[in-house]
């Protein structure tokens, strides 16, 4: 038996504690969400009817199963509020992801062109805002975008506008906030693929007579597609469920699904419907999550 194999045994035992923790605090809670999404609303504390009472035995469990209902999900698909917040979440996430790609790609491209020593510094500069508080960065924008904030002052001073523009509580403010917060998530995967690219491919393209623009579209861009996909999904998935940014920066008009869920839970105290909305949001995110997983696996496979 090699030393490697002997080591593998205790290493497996090392995983027991994190395993139990994740089952108890990650897997089991999802069971609860699923269970409550299928139960009836009740005016009680907690505000739902309990489903299982194991102390009552087998008959009670069978009765509980008979009581499971899809009523909450029926409500979701029949209520305009939910349908419109799902749609809005999708629209906002798609639009933000496209804007992020447009802004993030040139930055990542510029980073990959930097001398080696500067690349590390640029990467650090992109990562630092990711560490800095997310809430604080949104708050920084409220400072700038408010009625007599810096942006309006600059625009007025330059005579670009004659009266202060309303920025705060608009979709524009929300998009600025989302793009600002998620930019590092877009830049890093793009940079990772662009930096790995073999420069001799571009040399070959130019030797064969391609203009720089043509070489970019025919060589660089297609080769960076895995990074584009990873960056887009890494941004799209969390933006769909975003709560803080639209709540602080967007107007009080239409809501994203994260906001609707929050409202249902904290204000209306309708836990079963909130749980059903959470399950539906998760279902919505399964295809992009699977896609992302596949992309990552292929990347890893290519690296080996």
């Amino acid at each position, binding site marked *: 038996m090699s030393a490697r194999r002997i080591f593998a045994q205790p290493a497996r035992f090392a995983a027991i504690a994190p395993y139990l923790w994740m089952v108890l*605090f990650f897997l089991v809670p999802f069971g609860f969400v699923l269970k409550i999404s299928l139960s009836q609303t009740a005016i009680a504390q907690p505000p739902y009817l309990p489903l299982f009472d194991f102390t009552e035995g087998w008959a009670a469990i069978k009765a509980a199963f008979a009581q499971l209902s899809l009523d909450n999900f029926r409500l979701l698909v029949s209520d305009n509020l939910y349908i419109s917040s799902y749609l809005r979440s999708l629209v906002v996430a798609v639009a933000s992801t496209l804007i992020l790609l447009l802004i993030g790609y040139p930055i990542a491209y510029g980073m990959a062109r930097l001398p080696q020593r500067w690349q590390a510094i640029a990467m650090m500069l992109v990562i630092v805002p990711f560490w800095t508080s997310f809430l604080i960065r949104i708050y920084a924008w409220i400072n700038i975008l408010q009625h007599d904030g810096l942006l309006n002052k600059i625009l007025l001073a330059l005579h670009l506008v004659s009266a202060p523009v309303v920025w705060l509580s608009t979709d524009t403010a929300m998009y600025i906030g989302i793009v600002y917060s998620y930019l590092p998530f877009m830049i890093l995967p793009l940079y990772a693929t662009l930096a790995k690219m073999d420069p001799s491919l571009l040399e070959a393209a130019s*030797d064969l007579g391609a203009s720089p623009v043509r*070489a970019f579209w025919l060589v660089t861009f297609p080769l960076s597609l895995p990074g584009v996909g990873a960056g887009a999904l890494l941004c799209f998935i969390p933006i769909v469920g975003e709560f803080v940014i639209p709540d602080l920066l967007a107007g009080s008009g239409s809501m994203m699904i994260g906001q609707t869920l929050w409202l249902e839970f904290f204000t209306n105290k309708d836990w079963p419907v909130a*749980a059903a909305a959470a399950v539906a949001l998760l279902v919505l995110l399964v295809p992009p999550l699977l896609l992302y997983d596949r992309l990552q696996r292929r990347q890893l496979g290519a690296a080996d």
Partner: protein
Amino acid sequence: MARKVNSLSPFNVTALALGMAFLYLPIVILVIYSFNASRLVTVWGGWSLRWYYEFFNDRAMLDAAWMSLRVAAVSATIATLLGTLAAVGLVRGERFRGRSLLSGMLYAPLVMPEVISGLSLLLLFVALNAERGFWTVTIAHTTLTICFVTVVVQSRLASLDRSLEEAAMDLGCDPVQAFLRVTLPLIIPAIAAGWMLAFTLSLDDVVIASFTTGPGSATLPIRIYSEVRLGVKPEINAICTMVIALIAVVIVIASLASKLSSSQGESAAPL
């Protein structure tokens, strides 16, 4: 001629400059305005430490800050212990039954919308009849930050030369001794970086803390959040600047730690 292909163009330089300005200007403006003497957030009234003074006299904010620091320290410590164990299991344990379930559970919180994670944990705590407050927020933050520790430690462990452990065992160490005496000292910088990442993430969270905390035990982000919803206050600028300063210190220490780790031979951790 061929060299030119891969060099910086004016377009690249402009994109980089604008990108960095976009990332940093809002934060710089916030920091400058935190030293503003004026009550109005938008009128410059000269340099002053007035709002820092206000913060240190604001009982509710101080309590919230203390709560946040405690939650962040305890949850980062538990997450580091569990995350390191998970990384050891995943890298050195090789294939074991349920391995992919473990890594799936670990990485899912990375992409899961926060409202869902918060909601599900609250439902669990309600079902367990647990009193909500310090421990429930700490458990929630631990669950969500384990994966960050695992990612950092895992990449360090994977790049480590296995023959070191094997040599230790040939010299008579048992696997646990080999780990404690050889492997652990080599991955300590990555573990430290993981702890600091978990600490800053916990210090930042508002959504999950809102779901899992109880009355009277708000964290700093929850307090900032409810203040911000009511409008901009100069005191918030000062608090935010202090949080940024704290996180900056943590980042400097973390990057020094990972530099130390890479100067010991192997390649640096990704974060």
